[in-house]
Structures are given as structure tokens and as C-alpha cells.
């Protein structure tokens, strides 16, 4: 069996699933996982399934070897689905909706390039290129009209030349015999890393399929904190914002301290920037006058100068030339509000990668009784013809499982049942393993958000995140670089021009200080925001979740999950805090799950808990417990003070809190 990112099923006796649930959830992507946690938390009986062998669907992260396996799986022809006859399980007045059990459409145009040497002597770049024919058409067709301007892309010049020649399909690297790393001759500083080393240390990589960041005051951070799911994950601050301008990578000053420390800004510019950042926090008549007109025009008329305009438009508001002023200002304010909560940039990144986040919500669901089963799917929904409600599902083992609601990832629905934007929208993704940072610095463990404005007029603007090994997503001596943009053409067409400008894919030349690409992957992913909220051809108690969208934050997904939860359980609170471990009460010998749950639900309320504990004879940890609680209350008070302080700072526009 291949190495997978979950526990192998080997030999452990398979248990039967219970046959009655309140909610059946298909797919373990972020939205589905949040819904699962929210429903279990308020006492619903949740069955959460995924047909894949890993958690988090298209939000997953993989070890290097896990990613190679995933790539192979994407390339496999999807077998025609065997339609089984479940009619014996269907009763009078019921009909079946067959679900799709493969996902051919969401990942397309997969291409892999490896620039590390397989063997010591070989210094030819070793290229493996794979295309997924069916999917490729989908994107190319839709992009033909839009990419009429592709001639301009030829200015992207070096791109074409440096692209390594295609070779015939080769065996995936995973099975290659290990070779010793080549000795470093040409470059004394950077250690050369061989493919064998990437494979050997593969488990220390956590390579995300999506690339997003958490806004420190965004809805995902709020939800993690509110629900206490935050206990399961650790985060790092994104340490700097960079941008690509005039052929160079530059640091964008965004906090007060950055602005003052900046060497590239003149004193006049510093003053202008500070004044602008302070003034834009409040709505002014001048701003309103620009409403409906591009933010870039508004910025131009502020007499800021070219660099500041670039920083403000591309790196702080992160919008395009023609985004309206009110939207640009809203993004700018959001950015500024997020500064200083945890660090000097507005962003956070989870240690071990974004793939942890859906798993954390799944854990919360499991802790509250949710039942988890990977490599397990649902073949059909059983629908009551009269009420148009789904009353049960039939799983891949032919078991009928009744339920009151079904939540599913959109890929489980046949195309003719879901409503999506036309033409379909895709994201272009590239994942690079490199040997140096795009902007080397001391210390070298930076986490950088890099904005790359369109390299051609009308081309996509690219978001790039560079992760160092401190994020536990790559091995020391390497960087993991994620590029994302809205697709115009295939991922390779869209992103190669940026990759070849910022990185080098050929043997090092004198003077060329750009980081080398060791390995890279291109693919397109369906854009989750293209899925319509309403209008799918499904029973009224079936709710559809989309995959990842192209935005940097997670607002789309969290909003979707909350709205699905509210449709299922309009009376219930969304993700109330789970009790602290110290507050959990083991009931006495006559404990029933019901009582257990009641105790847990009051868990947020510490006073009540303490009273209950007082009634318990057996609790010996009481004293320790109360101490802990007191400590926490004190923390909370301190917290309020801090928040007031922050409010003051926000009025000053740029808030800067010293980090401990």
C-alpha cells in the first residue's frame, strides 16, 4: 500500500456503521468540516464521510510522497461508475438520486517539472510533464476568447526559452532508488538538494493544495477562537509583505514601525503614507466623491507618488486597477485593522499548513460524537417523492442510513444538478520547492506574502506565499512557494511568466542570485466561488458546499458554512465555545451520554460547573480546577483592557502593538 496521509485500513476489523443519524455530511473540505463541528457541538448525531483516503478534500496538504501519489491519482482515468441496483432498499413513494463518486472536473492541467538531478552526474534538468487531457480541454476552451491578448505574453520573453524541453512520460520518481546528494560545486552558499533527498525527507513536507492566509481579524480566526477549535492548531505570523516591481522584489512597509524603518521611502513619502493610512480609516466626503470610480484613480489623485500608489493598490488593498474606490477603501481598512493583533502583518499561517484547519474542525465534531469514516462514500440519496426531502442515503456498502439532512461537497453532485457560473471559473496554481528566499534576509525564517501585479495588461495578478521551514511545511534549506491567480489560460500558461522572472529553472549562471526551483507542480482547480448559493436541483434538506475560492482569506467558506448551519438548525447557536479540558466532568457511575452532554454544554459557564463539581463526591481535582479558572478570569479582564487600548490605536489608523 502506498503511503497515505491517514491511518491505513489494513487488517483492522471493519465495524458496521449505525443506521440512523441526524445529519450525513459528504466531503471533509473546510465548509463541510465546519458544519460538522457546529452540528455535533449542539448535540446532533453526525456521520461525516469522505470517499478519499485523506482529510480535507481539495483543502488537503500532503507530504511530498503523498503529493506524488495524489498526482498519480489525478492522472488516472476515472473508471466508468458501476451503477448498482439498490432498488431492493427503496420503499414505496421513494426515488433515488445517484451521486457521483469521482471528481474528474475539479483538478485539471496537472504538470510536474523536476529540476533536481536524479543522479550525481546528470545536470540536465529532468522534466516530467503530464497533462490530463479531458480537463485541459475544459479550461482551454473557456479561455480561448479571453486570452486573445496572449500575443502580448510574448514580451514575457525569457519564459519561452527557459522552459525545459518536454520529455516523454516518465515513471514517477517515488520508486527511484535513492541516490546520494550531489556535492555542491558551483554554488558555495546554497546546498544542492537532490530529488532523492526530497523523497527521503518527504514526510517533513506539508504541501497545501490551496494557498490562503488567515486575516487576523477575519471570520476564520474569529470562529476558531469563539469555538475553541483554536486549541488544536498553532499559528505563525506572516512576517513580511513583499511585492514585485520593476523586476525586483521589494518589501512593503505597512505598520508604523515599518514605515519609519523603511529605507526605500523618502521622508516626504513616509509622511504622505502615514497621513494617508490615518485618514483613510474614516469616511470622508472626498472618498464618497470617488464612489463608483476606480480606487487607482483615487490613489493617483492623492499625490502619493508611484511607489506608494503601487504599495497601496497591489499590496495593501490587494485589488486591481479597476476596482471601485469604495471596495478598495474597504480592503485597505480591513488590512489596517488586522495589523498588530498578532504581529506586524495582518496575516497568520497555520503551522503544518492549511490542511490542518479542516481536520481541527473534524476533531471537534468527533469529540462531540461525530462519526468519521474515510474511504467511504454514499452512492444515492433516497428522496420522498411527496415532500421532496431526502430521508436516507445508501452508502458504498449498500447500507441504508436514515437522516434528516444531507450536506455535501459539490463534486458529489452530477453537473446537471448544480448551478454554477458560466463559463466555469478556475484558479491557476503553482507549487514550487526552491532553494532560497526571493528576498534573502537575516534571520532567514521569513514567511512572506508577495503580491505580483499583472505582468501583461489584462493578465492575472498573482498572489504568492513563500513559506520557510519554520512553518513545518518544508525541509530546512528549502522554501515552499505557492502561486495563485484567477485562470486566464492553464496554470502553466498563467504562472510560468512569473515563475521564470522571479526564479531560475536553469543551471545557475554568474550573477544570477534568483532562487532555483527544485521541483514544481502546476494545476488548475475549480473556483469554489463559481458555485451558486441557491438553485441546485436537490431535495430541500440537501445543502451543497463549494471547494476553495480564489480569495486570500476564508470569508466565503465560513459564511457558507454558517448559512448552511442556520438553515439546518435555525434555533441553535453556531459553534459556541467548547468547554475547557479542565472543566469537563466525568459523571458518576450512572452517567448516561445525555447527562454527559448536558454537563458539557454548560461547560462555557464556569460558575455552574463549579457548583456541579461541588456536588460531586468523587472529584478530587476540584481545587486545582478552581485555581485554573480564576487564572482564566483574570486573563479575561486583562484582555478587555487590551482591547480598549487597541480601539484607541485603531483610530490612529495604523496600530502597532509590540509583540511579546
Amino acid at each position, binding site marked *: 500500500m502506498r503511503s497515505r496521509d491517514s491511518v491505513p485500513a489494513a487488517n483492522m476489523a471493519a465495524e458496521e456503521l449505525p443506521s440512523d443519524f441526524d445529519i450525513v455530511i459528504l466531503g471533509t473540505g473546510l465548509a463541510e468540516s465546519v458544519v460538522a463541528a457546529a452540528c455535533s457541538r449542539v448535540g446532533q448525531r453526525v456521520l461525516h464521510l469522505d470517499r478519499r483516503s485523506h482529510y480535507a478534500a481539495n483543502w488537503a496538504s500532503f507530504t511530498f510522497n503523498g503529493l506524488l501519489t495524489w498526482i498519480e491519482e489525478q492522472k488516472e482515468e476515472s473508471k466508468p461508475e458501476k451503477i448498482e441496483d439498490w432498488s431492493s432498499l427503496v420503499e414505496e413513494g421513494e426515488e433515488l438520486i445517484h451521486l457521483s463518486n469521482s471528481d474528474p472536473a475539479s483538478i485539471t492541467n496537472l504538470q510536474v517539472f523536476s529540476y533536481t538531478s536524479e543522479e550525481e552526474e546528470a545536470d540536465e534538468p529532468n522534466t516530467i510533464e503530464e497533462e490530463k487531457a479531458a480537463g485541459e480541454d475544459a479550461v482551454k476552451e473557456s479561455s480561448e476568447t479571453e486570452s486573445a491578448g496572449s500575443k502580448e505574453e510574448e514580451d514575457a520573453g525569457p519564459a519561452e526559452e527557459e522552459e525545459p524541453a518536454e520529455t516523454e512520460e516518465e515513471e514517477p520518481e517515488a520508486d527511484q532508488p535513492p541516490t546520494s546528494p550531489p556535492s555542491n560545486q558551483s554554488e558555495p552558499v546554497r546546498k544542492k538538494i537532490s530529488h532523492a533527498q526530497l523523497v527521503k525527507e518527504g514526510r517533513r513536507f506539508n504541501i497545501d493544495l490551496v494557498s490562503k492566509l488567515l486575516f487576523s481579524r477575519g471570520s476564520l480566526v474569529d470562529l476558531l477562537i469563539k469555538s475553541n477549535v483554536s486549541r488544536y492548531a498553532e499559528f505563525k505570523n506572516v512576517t513580511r509583505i513583499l511585492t514585485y516591481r520593476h523586476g525586483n522584489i521589494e518589501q512593503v512597509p505597512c505598520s508604523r514601525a515599518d514605515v519609519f524603518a523603511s529605507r526605500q521611502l523618502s521622508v516626504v513619502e513616509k509622511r504622505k503614507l502615514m497621513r494617508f493610512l490615518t485618514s483613510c480609516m474614516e469616511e470622508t466626503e472626498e472618498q464618497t466623491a470617488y464612489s463608483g470610480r476606480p480606487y487607482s484613480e483615487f490613489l493617483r489623485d492623492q499625490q502619493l507618488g508611484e511607489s506608494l500608489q503601487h504599495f497601496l493598490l497591489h499590496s495593501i488593498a490587494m485589488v486591481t486597477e479597476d476596482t471601485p474606490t469604495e471596495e478598495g477603501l474597504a480592503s485597505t481598512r480591513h488590512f489596517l485593522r488586522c495589523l498588530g493583533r498578532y504581529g506586524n502583518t495582518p496575516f497568520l499561517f497555520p503551522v503544518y499548513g492549511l490542511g490542518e484547519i479542516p481536520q481541527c474542525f*473534524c476533531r471537534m465534531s468527533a469529540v462531540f460524537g461525530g462519526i468519521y469514516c474515510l474511504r467511504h462514500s454514499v452512492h444515492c440519496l433516497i428522496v420522498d417523492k411527496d415532500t421532496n426531502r431526502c430521508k436516507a442515503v445508501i452508502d458504498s456498502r449498500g447500507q441504508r442510513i436514515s437522516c434528516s439532512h444531507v450536506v455535501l461537497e459539490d463534486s458529489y453532485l452530477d453537473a446537471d444538478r448544480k448551478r454554477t457560473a458560466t463559463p466555469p471559473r478556475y484558479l491557476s496554481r503553482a507549487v514550487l520547492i526552491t532553494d532560497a528566499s526571493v528576498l534573502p534576509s537575516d534571520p532567514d525564517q521569513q514567511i512572506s506574502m508577495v503580491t505580483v501585479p499583472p505582468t501583461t495588461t489584462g493578465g492575472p495578478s498573482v498572489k504568492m506565499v513563500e513559506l520557510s521551514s519554520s512553518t513545518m511545511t518544508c525541509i530546512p534549506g528549502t522554501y515552499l512557494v505557492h502561486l495563485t491567480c484567477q485562470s486566464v489560460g492553464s496554470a502553466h500558461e498563467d504562472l510560468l511568466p512569473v515563475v521564470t522572472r522571479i526564479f531560475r529553472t536553469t543551471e545557475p549562471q554568474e550573477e544570477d542570485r534568483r532562487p532555483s526551483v527544485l521541483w514544481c507542480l502546476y494545476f488548475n482547480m475549480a473556483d469554489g466561488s463559481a458555485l451558486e448559493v441557491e438553485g441546485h436541483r436537490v431535495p430541500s434538506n440537501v445543502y451543497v458546499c463549494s471547494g476553495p475560492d480564489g480569495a486570500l482569506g476564508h470569508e466565503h467558506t465560513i459564511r457558507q458554512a454558517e448559512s448552511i448551519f442556520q438553515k439546518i438548525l435555525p434555533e441553535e447557536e453556531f459553534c459556541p465555545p467548547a468547554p475547557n479540558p479542565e472543566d469537563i466532568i466525568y459523571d458518576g457511575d450512572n452517567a448516561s451520554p445525555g447527562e454527559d452532554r448536558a454537563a458539557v454544554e454548560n461547560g462555557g459557564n464556569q460558575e455552574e460547573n463549579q457548583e456541579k463539581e461541588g456536588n460531586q463526591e468523587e472529584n478530587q481535582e476540584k481545587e486545582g480546577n478552581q485555581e485554573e479558572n480564576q487564572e482564566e478570569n483574570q486573563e479575561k479582564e486583562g484582555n478587555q483592557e487590551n482591547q480598549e487600548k487597541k480601539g484607541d490605536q485603531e483610530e490612529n489608523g495604523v496600530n502597532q502593538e509590540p509583540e511579546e
Partner: protein
Amino acid sequence: MAIRELKVCLLGDTGVGKSSIVCRFVQDHFDHNISPTIGASFLTKTVPCGNELHKFLIWDTAGQERFHSLAPMYYRGSAAAVIVYDITKLDSFQTLKKWVKELKEHGPEDIVVAIAGNKNDLGDIREVPMKEAKEFAESIAAIFIETSARNAVNVEELFQKISKQIPPLQNAEVESNDSFKLTRQPNPTTRRCC
């Protein structure tokens, strides 16, 4: 004394007594009809060790292993793993080897592994000889101990043994690691992540 948080994850077949062991250790309590611990993300207990205090954050599988669907995040940052089998069930000892392999693949590289043969109060229906289990543990350099959550035998000792095997904290590690948990406080305290 410095408090050090240590994540410990429990592994092993369903019914071997994982939850009972935690319950005995943390609350010194045993329940014949222990219900799956709903709502416990992890339980904590602090014990002194040398000139440090070890605060164990003990993670139970929350049932995710029942259908072989334990998420890799379960292992993240674990200082130790306790793999439990039931001395009266040969099967549960056989799957132990799978859990060891699983840990090697997905667990942290320097994780301390402890093997606990639970229910040793049921010696008369024993199926797993102690010698065999002990030899296996030695072969993988794991801690070995037989326990009874029911009679409070060797449960404290299990965690003491783990405590002793945890390497002392290097100062450099504390400083270089600036990852943090999100809390309601605005300024997270920096602490070691794994």
C-alpha cells in the same frame, strides 16, 4: 518551577481501555460503563519531574480510529504516544504493530513511545504473554508496562516513565519557536509547539 506542556496521544484498538487509563490518571476514577468521552478535547494533569513541571495534555482518539480515519493532526506536536492493548485480546496486540508503523509514518520523529498492556487484573484470561510484549517493546526502544485502569495499577508509573524519557528543554528551542495558539487575548504568549 517552569511548566512544560506535553502533548500525549493515545492509540490502540477500540475497547482496550484508553479512556479508562486517562480517567484513572487524571481523575483517579474508574467506571465500568465508561461512555465515549463526549466533549473532551484532551484532559490535563500536571506532575513534577526534576526541576520542571510536566503538564500532560492527553489526547484521546475521539473515536476517529474506529473506522480507521484518524487525522494526521492528531499526532502533531506530540511529545509521546501511548499505544494500549488489552492483555486478554491477542488481536489488540497484533494491531499494536500497525500503530507503531503508523506512528513512524505520521508521528513526530523524536516521539517517545510507550506500550501499555492494560487489564492486567484479568490475568486468568490473559492471551498475550508479558514476555512477548516486553521483547517487542524493547525491539522498538519503547517503554513497556502492564496496567490496570480498574485497580489503579501502574497508571501513574506509566506517565512517570514517559516524563523521565522526555528530553530536557533546550533554551534555543524556546527562543527560536514563535508559533502560538489563538486565544481571546490579543498578545499570544510564545510557547514551544512540539
